[in-house]
């Protein structure tokens, strides 16, 4: 096992990773920006290193700073959390070159699966069902031809995109050329890579993803599926497992498909394969996330498996301690993302200073948060303040518990808005309650106010 792990992230996930490291007797070093010097993760770490200013580009996104911090603190491994450098094949290569273990899949796997175009090619070769479209990066003429062939609506996606950014849906062939040009330009600005491709777009779909764990000895298991259909601006708000109202056979099939594909890709570590489920129950592969997901707690709550612990064990070269048949799933878990944002203004992130912060508690209620009185929420980082995850034997009880927990949660301060009330509205919405919702639920709610 590692002696020292450098945590190259911030917020709730830095704390999450730190906790498991401590439980495993691994020393923790938290790399932090000037803005995060008073964070809970820094306070609880064995050592902390200030790696740069608030702007992520010069701190959490700066490979040189992170590697220097790792070398300086004697870390033998780096946990990248999610976001930032967690899916950078280049950073993974740099770590490998410096003799540091980056906790995640090997750089070659990230390079292949992290790029959407090559991931799509891989999926085709691994016989995963994909949406009709063209996986080659293409020009405007070829793009329009593909769009016509698969039929509108289509989505134009940046090859290097992710997290809901760098994609544009086109319903009308007349809009295609402009949308194509805009997405290319955006892709270049956001990711430094103008490549885009075109895919069939599903209006009424569910977002379902499968969690896998793989060791370096060829053992791969899946830890079930999560439904992440409640999204605003293509970013997840509520996640749950198991996906409700989806036949068990479909989920089992997805699990098997995913394990086979992960094995084919030479996957090592924790990863997520994302799919859309159309109204006929057919699955289509979208992308792979080569890292821990924000929503991993729901999987932990129904399986009892600590995903960060498994990440560390596998990264240290150990074999998985269980086989597929040893993984048992119990009950239902739901996670709500509490963000500093204003649903009334299109979920605009709202900076401010938190004065009152009283998170919920109680049975089967887990709160992952770096929130505290005095926390300054800035535009530099993701607006996520807390994840409230609950467990219950049934979905109805889990939703009631989540509702109760959100009701208890008090967050206030000058300038601070949260989506707490909106999350409760989603939990109470009949479409969600009866699991008849799709990824367009939030849009539907915003256009038809509930009465």
């Amino acid at each position, binding site marked *: 096992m590692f*002696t*020292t792990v450098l945590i190259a992230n911030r917020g709730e996930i830095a704390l999450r990773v730190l906790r498991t490291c401590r439980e495993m*007797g691994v*020393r923790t070093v938290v790399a932090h920006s*000037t803005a995060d*010097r*008073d964070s809970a993760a820094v306070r609880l770490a*064995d*050592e902390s*290193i*200030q*790696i*740069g*200013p*608030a702007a992520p580009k*010069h*701190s959490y996104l700066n*490979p*040189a*700073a992170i*590697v*220097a*911090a790792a070398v*300086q603190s*004697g870390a033998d491994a780096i946990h990248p959390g999610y976001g930032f450098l967690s899916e950078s094949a280049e950073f993974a290569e*740099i770590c490998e070159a*410096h003799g540091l273990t980056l906790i995640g899949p090997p750089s070659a796997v990230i390079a292949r699966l992290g790029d959407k175009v090559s991931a799509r090619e891989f999926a085709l070769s691994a016989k995963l069902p994909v949406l009709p479209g063209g996986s080659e990066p293409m020009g405007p003429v070829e793009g329009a031809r593909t769009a016509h062939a698969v039929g509108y609506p289509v989505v134009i996606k940046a090859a290097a995109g992710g997290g809901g950014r760098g994609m544009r849906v086109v319903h009308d062939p007349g809009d295609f050329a402009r949308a194509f040009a805009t997405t290319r330009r955006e892709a270049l600005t956001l990711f430094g890579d103008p490549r885009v491709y075109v895919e069939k777009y599903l209006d009424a779909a569910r977002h379902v993803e499968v969690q896998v764990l793989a060791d370096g000895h060829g053992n791969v298991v899946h830890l079930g599926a999560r439904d992440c259909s409640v999204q605003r601006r293509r970013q997840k708000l509520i996640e749950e497992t198991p996906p409700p109202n989806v036949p068990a056979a479909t989920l089992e099939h997805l699990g098997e498909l995913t394990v086979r594909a992960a094995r084919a890709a030479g996957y090592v570590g924790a990863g997520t394969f994302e799919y859309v489920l159309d109204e006929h129950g057919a699955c289509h592969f979208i992308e792979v996330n080569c890292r821990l997901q924000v929503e991993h707690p729901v999987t932990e709550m129904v399986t009892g498996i600590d995903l960060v612990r498994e990440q560390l064990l596998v990264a240290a070269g150990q074999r998985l301690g269980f086989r597929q048949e040893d993984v048992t799933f119990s009950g239902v878990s739901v996670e709500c993302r509490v963000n500093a944002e204003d649903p009334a203004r299109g979920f605009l992130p709202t900076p401010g200073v938190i004065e009152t912060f009283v998170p919920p508690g109680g049975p089967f209620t887990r709160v992952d948060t770096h929130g505290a009185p005095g926390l300054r929420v800035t535009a530099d980082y993701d607006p996520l303040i807390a994840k409230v995850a609950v467990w219950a034997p049934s979905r109805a009880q889990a939703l009631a518990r989540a509702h109760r927990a959100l009701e208890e949660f008090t967050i206030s301060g000058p300038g601070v808005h949260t989506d707490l009330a909106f999350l409760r509205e989603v939990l109470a919405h009949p479409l969600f309650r009866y699991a008849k919702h799709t990824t367009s639920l939030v849009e539907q709610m915003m256009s038809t106010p509930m009465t």
Partner: protein
Amino acid sequence: MTADTRHADEGEQVLAWVVRHAAQLGQAGPAPLRRIRVSTATLAVDVEWSQARPAGRDPAEAGQEGAGEAGAEGVVAVTAPMVGTFYRSREPGAPPFVQVGDVVEPGQQVGIIEAMKLMNPVLAECHGLVSEIVAADGAPVQYEDTLLFLGLDDASGGVFPRL
């Protein structure tokens, strides 16, 4: 469990050490001892004195983003523009970029920070006299750690020796 037992022993030893040396440490610093923070395993000890002269790790000091701001006493700290290893000279054996007593001009190189084999120059941002060099040659430094202090010309009434 073995690991934890080991931890416990080490912890005991470190605690005993702290108890033995707290008094000495208290006198060693420029001000009363404020905090001793110890963490086991490969061991990190962090001793802090209250109201110590700005020394890079003081949160209040580091709160001023960007280096080169004047301190209370007409001195300005040159701080690390990045995390890495600080070098006082271009290469081992070469003369240091600056010594105490040197006068530096804005833009003059005063050191190097090496991160991932890249040598990043550290430049003075204003005219001043090197009054103290805080970071040792080859020392690991964090972002905004104080490397050296410059006495300011105007604050000291223009009495800098023109060497």
